[in-house]
């Protein structure tokens, strides 16, 4: 099943792989492992992002063994086959006459950037609907100018659970009472309708209605798109995007809701922009605020282990210790991720029991249902192909 997930889901769909900010200069690279695949993502000499399979065309050695770094050319450490950052074989020592280097370029992987986010697709023919999805979410993301951001922090957390449990956990807030830090500033009401709100969330809901009315006025004045678009299971590149208010000061994920970084991501007249939230199938989600952005990806490692990578972006000129305190910036999501890891591990243990029989979803878990629906449909399509 794990191998099928890699083949049918991760090798067939557009995946969020890195941020532009991780590759500021030509020659900068990151490597991404997906199942037994390893992919090099590198900025080329023209400043474009390219992706290649991390496999030497000589005898197949893994070429770049670090998670990230900077190269002049891409050189295999085994026999020094040397590829340009365009993937072309530039040098191979002592080859027979008639050897044609142009036949031995690195195998390329589809790569594209979208408003500061880098996506790759391992399929020969990637889902064609990504261009449409990109065109629809780009106006939401673009005002935050993530291309001009830098990585303030990146944390890899290995959750002891299957990647689908990690994703399902992310796609509902039914469990959000387990996130005290997050609940300071996040209105934990998504998925709820007024009729099924528990009494404990009623005060938050009242504040939400007020904040939402005010936020819409701000968004409209600033020309920021905010309407929810939800197409999570009706297309290959399933997605959901919305801009909505945050609680308290309404600026950021902090204890009092005030901005965690004084230098905003762009020239916004106010920091009180709430959160732009983006969910993408199969494996990523994002919160983009006025002062910083948090990017998440879930990558399967084993049937019961998943890498959850969190990347915090701030404006490239923001100075740590001056404009932001790293501990404050990362506190809420570090705590929330740790809590989620515990919940996912518990779920993995429970569903592994022969006694497990699925119970019904709450109406607030509609995005979990959409995720599962998307997954089963994509799997079915793969198996019929």
């Amino acid at each position, binding site marked *: 099943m794990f191998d099928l997930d890699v083949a049918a889901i991760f090798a067939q769909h557009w995946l969020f792989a890195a941020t532009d900010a991780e590759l500021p200069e030509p020659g900068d690279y990151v490597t991404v492992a997906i199942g037994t695949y390893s992919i090099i993502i590198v900025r080329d000499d023209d400043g474009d992002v390219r992706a290649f399979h991390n496999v030497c065309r000589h005898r197949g050695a893994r070429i770049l063994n670090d998670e990230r770094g900077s190269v002049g050319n891409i050189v295999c450490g085994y026999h020094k086959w*040397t590829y340009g950052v365009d993937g072309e074989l530039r*040098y191979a020592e002592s*080859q027979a006459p*008639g050897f044609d280097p142009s036949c031995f370029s690195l195998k390329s992987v589809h790569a594209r950037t979208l408003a500061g986010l880098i996506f790759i697709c391992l399929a020969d023919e990637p889902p064609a609907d990504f261009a449409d999805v990109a065109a629809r979410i780009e106006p939401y993301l673009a005002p935050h100018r993530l291309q001009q951001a830098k990585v303030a922090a990146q944390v890899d957390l290995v959750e002891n659970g299957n990647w689908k449990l990690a994703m399902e956990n992310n796609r509902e807030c039914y469990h959000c009472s387990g996130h005290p830090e997050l609940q300071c500033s996040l209105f934990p009401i998504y998925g709820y309708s007024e009729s099924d709100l528990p009494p404990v969330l009623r005060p938050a809901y009242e504040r939400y209605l007020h904040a939402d009315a005010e936020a819409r006025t701000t968004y409209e004045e600033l020309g920021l798109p905010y309407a929810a678009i939800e197409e999570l299971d009706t297309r290959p590149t399933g997605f959901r995007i919305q801009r909505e208010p945050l609680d308290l000061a309404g600026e950021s994920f902090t204890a009092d809701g005030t901005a965690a970084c004084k230098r905003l991501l762009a020239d916004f007249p106010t920091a009180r922009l709430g959160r732009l939230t983006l969910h993408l199938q199969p494996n990523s989600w994002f919160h983009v605020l006025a002062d910083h952005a948090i990017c998440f990806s879930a990558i399967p490692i084993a049937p019961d282990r998943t890498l959850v990578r969190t990347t915090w972006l701030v404006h490239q000129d923001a100075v740590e210790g001056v404009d932001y305190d790293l501990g404050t910036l990362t506190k809420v999501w570090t705590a929330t991720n740790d809590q989620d890891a515990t919940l996912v591990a518990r779920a993995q243990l429970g569903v592994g029991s022969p006694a497990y029989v699925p119970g019904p979803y709450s109406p607030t878990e509609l995005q979990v249902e959409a995720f599962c629906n998307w997954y089963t449909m994509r799997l079915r399509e793969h198996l019929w192909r």
Partner: protein
Amino acid sequence: MTEMLLTCKQVHTITADVRTFVFEVAGSEQLRFDAGQYLTVTTEPDGIPVTRCYTISSPPTRPRRIAITVKRVPGGLVSNWLHDHLTPGGTLRASGPQGQFSVARHPAPKYLFLSGGSGVTPSMSMTRTLYDLADPADVLFVHSARTPDDIIFRRELDLIAATVPHIRVVHVCEENGPVESWGGYRGRLDLAMLRQIAPDLLEREIFACGPPGYVEAVRLMLPAAGFDMARYHEELFTVPAPAPANSNGGGSFKVELTRSGRTIACDSETAILTAAAQEGITLPASCAQGMCGTCKTTLVAGTVNMRHNGGIRPREIAQNKILLCCSTPLEDVVIDA
């Protein structure tokens, strides 16, 4: 080979750092040589004799005078002396002619002349000769320069190409000049570019001359194209021979290798990797063309001239990293190797 005294008759400015020196051979009406051959020139810049080889850039079809064309090289002892001191009326000791790098030795119906920088001189002598003799041979003249302003003999080549249809001239520039932006082939010559320029390259007799990195790149790309290397001829325009042992003034600098615990001599025209190899020191290296980065090391002190091929990034250069295979010393240097 004859010893001769040359008297300078005229100096032509060709580009900002290239000049042609035209000579009369003392005591003889004319000098017999083949287009592409070179002279060994001796000067005494600091009272110590130093020799360098220069291709005769003029054609044997104009036998009453001979010319050499010299690029000023940072730290270049002889080239700088010629540029700074040799004027009409001045003299120079020389011997020659020497060399097999000539169309006279390898006649063919179709030629491809490949040159980089001041390695243009033998191609130019051969092209001028074929042109003067109204030779029907098909000539494709491909020259690589850093910028359009560095193209040597550009106007004369334009004239030749405009006058006879079977001589074609193509220039390749790495970047724009300070004045002229370059609209032609751009970058370093590689096989894909060469195939575009010369789709019929397999039919041609090839002569390549230029800096070591350039010539090595050409030598490696041609077998990949399936070229019969029996019809390939090359010449490095720098002198590979080490300076005389008793001379400390041959443009030679001290290179201290801290990890090897050795200090070697290396002149301003020899890559440090090459100089180390000549002293029996094998350092980690692979392509020797500035591409693979295997010989990357830290320059602890001093400065070098580095002409790499993408094997190192500006950020690394800013951290005092260099590639030994394509770095020549500009002064005494200390290297972490």
